[in-house]
């Protein structure tokens, strides 16, 4: 029997490694919404811009290593995408974090605050997807 989740597990471990690098070397939290938010505000410009440039370079490096682009399937309509983007930008700033900051580092540090955030965005996400499926989208 083969275990189909190796790429997911290994990919996740690389994300954990990235967070560890940034934490132990730079003393910073690898929370992408925080990094993007500070970049927009122009704070610690060079390091935050460097992280985002690295992030964007990830898929091309993957292409060189594996010979194909990672799959990206988008089914949502353009208006839905724009509304979703606005909500994600607003919500992650208001809630001080996203899947990486609260989800990875918060849970790894046993932060109760992050656990509450993770429960909130998971439940909201599950509810949204379930309602969309029931509405036949």
């Amino acid at each position, binding site marked *: 029997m083969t275990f189909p989740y190796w790429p997911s597990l*290994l990919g996740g471990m690389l994300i954990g490694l990235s967070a560890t690098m940034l934490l*132990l070397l730079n003393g910073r939290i690898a929370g992408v919404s925080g990094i*993007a938010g500070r970049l927009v505000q122009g704070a610690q410009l060079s390091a935050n811009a460097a992280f985002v440039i*690295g992030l964007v370079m990830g898929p091309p490096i993957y292409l060189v290593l594996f010979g194909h682009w990672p799959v990206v399937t988008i089914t949502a309509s353009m208006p839905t995408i724009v509304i979703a*983007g606005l909500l994600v930008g607003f919500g992650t700033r208001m809630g001080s974090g996203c899947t990486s900051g609260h989800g990875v580092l918060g849970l790894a540090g046993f932060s109760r605050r992050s656990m509450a955030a993770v429960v909130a965005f998971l439940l909201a996400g599950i509810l949204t997807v379930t309602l969309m499926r029931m509405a036949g989208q």
Partner: protein
Amino acid sequence: MTNRISQGAVALGAGAVFGIGLSLSGMLDPARVQGFLDVFGAWDPSLAFVLGGAVAVAMIGMMLMRRMVRPMLDTVFHLPTATKIDARLVTGSAIFGVGWGLAGLCPGPALSALSLGLMPVVAFVVAMVIGMVVHDRLAQGRSA
């Protein structure tokens, strides 16, 4: 100065490792993220393994950090200081969760997937930045 250059190099490297990890994990794909959130439908558990792997490795990082006086390239650790679970945290996270479910994209994969040059991803990132700016303006107005 040297430290700032090294910090920039570390940030670039960490960003790239993060982006490769996202690509390998399959989480760049909104359809798979929505599949994970679709617990009452055709559930795809992949994201749980991604998060599990990431948290396990980050826990080692957190344990090492607690033994260090300061990070290797800076004088202090820059960690979040808030501890209170308040309405802002929960409401903001829930708003994020709705957007995450609608598009299947969160900030990391959205920024990383910009390199594929797909219009919907570009539109999502532009809208996300606008959402961040709108929030910060409103928050500023309230505290002023």
